[in-house]
């Protein structure tokens, strides 16, 4: 380890180097590690609700299947595809940033924002449908629009428990959507900064950790989609 108290470096510090770090490498490593630890935290955060989901789904399988079958698999699939595309554009954005391609970075980040917005837009359509059918848990909840595997109306207790499905549906997808709503403006800031030349091959850590965050949000959806939308219906 070279001692920093030797003659001060001739090279000027990178403008993005914060005072308490010695090198850009440490600063970057710290940010990346910080994001990974944050992601570990996020796993547990979703995990708490996932545990509730797993248990109630096993206890009230029919109710969960009935609830799941009201969800629109087509929209869900489209949204999954949209999110995967946005993950790709995000990865390409980071890639471009690493190579110092300014225009490409901005373009890919903007594409990511657009795809993220499409996802959220479709989510709004889906939520609106639940409101329309009184499937929002709470005093107005009604399972009237749900039906059993053969189109028959639900028995009273299955109807009762279907509310749990929707509570967890809104909880999990709501939490996920919240993460996206936080993510989009952050990507927008990144795009703005990239456009103003703040990043270069020597320093694009913010883009990179934003990417990590966005990919994680994608992964959450990869699990939520089959769990919520694709509960099979054979007894």
């Amino acid at each position, binding site marked *: 380890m070279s001692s920093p108290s030797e003659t001060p470096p001739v090279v000027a510090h990178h403008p993005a180097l914060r005072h308490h770090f010695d090198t850009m490498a440490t600063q970057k490593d710290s940010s990346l*590690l*910080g994001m990974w630890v944050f992601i570990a935290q996020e796993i547990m955060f979703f995990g708490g609700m996932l545990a509730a989901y797993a248990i*109630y789904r096993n206890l009230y399988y029919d109710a969960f299947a009935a609830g799941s079958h009201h969800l629109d698999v087509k929209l869900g699939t489209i949204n999954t595809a949209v999110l995967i595309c946005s993950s790709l554009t995000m990865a390409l954005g980071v890639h471009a940033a690493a190579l110092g391609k300014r225009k490409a970075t901005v373009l890919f980040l903007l594409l990511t924002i657009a795809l993220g917005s499409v996802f959220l837009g479709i989510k709004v359509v889906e939520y609106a449908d639940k409101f329309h059918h009184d499937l929002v848990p709470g005093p107005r909840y009604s399972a009237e629009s749900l039906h059993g595997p053969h189109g028959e109306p639900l028995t009273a207790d299955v109807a009762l428990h279907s*509310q749990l499905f929707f509570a967890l549906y809104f909880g999990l997808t709501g939490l996920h959507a919240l993460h996206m709503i936080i993510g989009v403006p952050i990507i927008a800031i990144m795009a703005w900064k990239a456009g103003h030349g703040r990043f270069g091959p020597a320093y694009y850590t913010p883009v990179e950790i934003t990417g990590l965050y966005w990919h994680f949000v994608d992964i959450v959806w990869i699990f939520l989609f089959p769990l919520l939308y694709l509960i099979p219906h054979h007894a």
Partner: protein
Amino acid sequence: MSTHAGEVPEPYGRPGGPPPPERPTLPVREPVNYLNVSYGTKSWLLTVDHKRIALLYMFSITVMFAIGGIFATLIRLELLTPPGDMVQSETYNKLFTMHGVVMVFFFLIPSIPATLGNFLIPIMIGAKDLAFPRLNLLSWYIYIVGAVFTMYAMISGGVDTGWTFYVPYSTHYSNTHVIATGLGIFINGFSSILTGLNFIVTIHKMRAPGLTWWRLPLFVWAHYATSLIMVLGTPVIAVTVGMVALESGLHLGIFDPALGGDPILFQHLFWFYSHPAVYIMILPAMGVVSELVQGMSRKRIFGYSFVAISSLAIAMLGFLVWGHHMFVSGQSTYLGLVFSGISFLVAIPSAVKVFNWTATLYKGSISLDTPMLYALGFIGLFTIGGLTGLFLASLGLDVHLTDTYFIVAHFHYIMVGGAIMGYLGGLHYWWPKITGRLYPETWGRVSAIIVFFGFNLTFGPQFILGYLGMPRRYHYYPPEFQILHVMSSAGASILALGYLLPLVYFTWSMRYGPRASANPWDARGLEWEIPSPPPTENFVGQPVVTDRTYEYGSEEGTTVV
């Protein structure tokens, strides 16, 4: 002493080393340090210096401790007599709930990590600051917002669910401010998470050259283990209280048996965090004590690597025992057996620590100054508290003991007798470093002794009460328990005095205390090699570590600045 840095003077105050430079009696100008570098409210509220943030926290948690202490005082006053004649039952229930919530979430969990940890970790590892200074400040603001929510709930009528928020009582029957309190805890959780994240990254990435893991101070090891729990446990309590708040507000059914919800599921989720959380409260105190015993007996800790690794072992195993709070809840018998078995295992690393601390004293050069008195008190009381934990981990015995005063005594022994003693010991030990002033030693010893005796009188009788069958959270109680309750209340008033003393003389010392040298204890460690109080960026150059921490006696110093 191999590597060297230029103009910085040799660390002084070490036996055989250069004599400490004479401090001019009338300093023309105090050297610039983190305290006098700037003045004004803004310079504090917008600071990103980890040392100043530590002081912000120290101030806030002291306020919280006082609030929690006032609740405790009222509880003990009420329990002087069997009939509930001082306050109404509703009020009593709010008292212990708010006492528990404030003490656990807003005092003890942030206590050592956010104050001493924040202050010392960067210094101990030779860094200029934590890895994310602005995030650190944000953590404090989040903490304040959470506290404001909870305070709002308390002022506008309080909350009466017990600090455990068991459903369906909290979600469907309590008509107090469950939602606001829940939000307060939810928000506060993120403060804890971000602090832990900051520590982890700092410890991994910012260590001085030469400071390998096996040279790391044990205080830092303990905080690494604590951070692990903070980061991986706290999110679960956050979603859980979040769900409780939603359920209370909207009646979704998640925890409502009438709608198919399951109350036991809540308990699983709650304790999944709240058991590890008890180790958030004790591990940092263990870290402090590891420093104190070596510093005050001028001897390297006995079995360094065992003490270091046991912290991690406690943190990891601590995640796997949550069900020992639910032995009679209706949890499956099979699971009860598993949780009990692992609870016994988690006692082993704690035992290892206790024995190593004790062995460190052997042939030491032991000073009985205040920090050491607190450290000795910690070891003794933690041992009792921990051993009574074994009573509770014992399935058949816990059936009788659960939800009685035995539990209350157990956890106060560890949290008040252990964690708070550790905190106070650490505060005294590093006070000269933090403020640049000495506290009055005699008063310090007096307060340590008062705390020790007051504490035992307060909570010792509660073990007997518990085995007799006195249930906890009882406003009215059968008259035969009165004598023991009176003893406990008498002890509490002594204890209160013991806590008030440091409050007074620390405040005094901040202004009038004699100036402290850089290393008043003649201890080893990076923090003692920089001036007291330290300059803003802690070190003038980059410190380089050439030897293990705590090498007393060998003239091979640990560090060169």
